[in-house]
């Protein structure tokens, strides 16, 4: 250390640069993390290819690739926003990383906004990779619907990130690890995300689940080219509830 640096006064970088810097730092960490890549990209791709192969073998009983691809996108968004962020944040909380970063110029708000940038960046990678794989396998989305699909993806990512952070900030890291994985598998298998819901009876009620709202919303957008108003409202409601609950119960340490 040299004293020639001492006269410079301490000052924070401008807020936007701090937030973008943290977003890029978090994105790099996620993309370098093998376990997170497995859950966020590899497993959804395996589901996509597996469901497509099943379709080829038993075409009468399985949904088409046009139905499966948006469903797998929903699964991938849940993986990165809910499972990935939940686990990462849970362990950051356990190791005191959240508390430390809250004492830096980044602060608590910058930390959350930086995480949001990271989630959106990873989701963008997921949309490109899974979307491309779907197109190769024969997915034929409505061109206008792709715009609405993007809106629903952002809404879904927001709702599931808020839910993941709520869990990470209220229970132990190990419990977050177990719960986010179990919930992700349950919502993926039977929560209306990958496979379409039966819209009669109990199936209609399941639409209130964020997973079903995300899956159905993405299918409506890509198949019909229309904006799924009800599903978007349900996702926004979940996001608002989770943010309010996190503000009340989230523990930084």
């Amino acid at each position, binding site marked *: 250390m040299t004293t020639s640096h001492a006269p410079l006064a301490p*000052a924070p970088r401008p807020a936007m640069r*701090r937030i973008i810097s*943290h977003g890029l*730092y978090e994105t790099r960490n996620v993309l370098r993390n093998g376990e997170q890549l497995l859950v966020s990209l590899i497993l959804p791709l395996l589901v996509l290819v597996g469901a497509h192969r099943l379709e080829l073998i038993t075409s009468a009983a399985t949904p088409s690739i046009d139905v499966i691809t948006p469903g797998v996108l929903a699964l991938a968004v849940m993986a990165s926003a809910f499972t990935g962020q939940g686990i990462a944040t849970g362990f950051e909380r356990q190791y*005191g*990383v959240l*508390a430390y970063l809250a*004492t830096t110029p980044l*602060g608590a708000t910058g930390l959350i906004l930086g995480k949001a940038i990271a989630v959106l960046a990873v989701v963008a990678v997921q949309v490109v990779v899974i979307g491309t794989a779907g197109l190769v396998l024969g997915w034929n989305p409505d061109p206008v619907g792709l715009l609405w699909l993007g809106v629903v993806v952002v809404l879904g990512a927001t709702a599931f990130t808020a839910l993941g952070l709520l869990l990470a900030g209220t229970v132990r890291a190990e419990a977050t690890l177990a719960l986010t994985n179990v919930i992700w598998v349950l919502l993926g298998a039977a929560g209306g995300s990958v496979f379409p819901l039966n819209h009669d009876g109990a199936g209609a009620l399941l639409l209130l689940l964020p997973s079903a709202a995300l899956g159905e919303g993405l299918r409506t957008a890509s198949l019909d080219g229309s904006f799924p108003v009800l599903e978007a409202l349900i996702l926004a409601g979940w996001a608002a509830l989770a943010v309010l609950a996190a503000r009340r119960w989230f523990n930084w340490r």
Partner: protein
Amino acid sequence: MPQHPPCLTLRHVRYAVGSARSPQGLKEILRGVDLTARSGEVTVLLGPNGAGKTTTLSCAQGLLHPSQGTVALLGQDPFRAGAELRARVGVMLQDGGMPQSVQPRALLKHVASLHQNPWPVEDLVSRLDMGDFLRTSIRRLSGGQKQRVALAASLLGRPEVVFLDEPTAGLDPQSRQTVFELIGELREMGMGIILTTHLLEEAQKLADSVFILKDGEVVRHGSVAELTGSGATGSETATGAARRMVFTASRTLTRAEIGSAPVSIELDGGIDNAPGAAWMTPSLTGPTQLRELAAWWELIGMMPVEVRMEARTLEDVFWEVSVS
């Protein structure tokens, strides 16, 4: 010498967890802490485990909001302050606060990117001898290496105030010396340093002022000289009344003999009550007690092998407070 300006002030700070309505009830961790730390000085917080040192630091850093009382860090409430204040403050948490899967280099560069005029990362890397493990994930570092990364991260923004919670925990003696030299330099540069440590000997050498906490309260505070009554830290010519005397017993002392001593005596740095064992009086208040001790030696028929007077140390004060 004029006093340095305060950089941190805590007034009647209380902090409680739980609820009066819950079965566990309300638990007060801090019970009215008053503390002032100054720029250009090292302020040391001492206290047994659970005394409230880390909670005091958390309130001072703005991580916790006191139930009652006020905190002023560089003149502002740290709990409500924005990035401008946080850029002027460096924090090293007791548990490090380091992400485990990240390499030190990536972490330090990221923290530096949050500041307008960061300290060059390479300077700190070189100073804290971190070159060998800069590209190893933090999970794989030793406790001492992690401490050095956390210390470097706390200094990256060129803070005016730095909080160091157990900065030398897990360090080998050489690294510990490096850290204490660095702290001395930071003080010379005018930084306010607030630290906790269990190393009382080092605290005695470094501290400009000491606050001893017990059960959530400051039970003693002052300079080392004021606390030990030595007049001047480590001075051989100290004239203060509070001294301790160490005598080496020529034989084992019986329980009854120990109980009949005119002032309380304790084995000095050992547990073996045997011929040659060193006994000490934690505090001597004057020559009268010396005369009484000599009379007691005569009474029990024991001539000490060696007798010496020592200035009281911070450790003596700490133990006195801990057992009281």
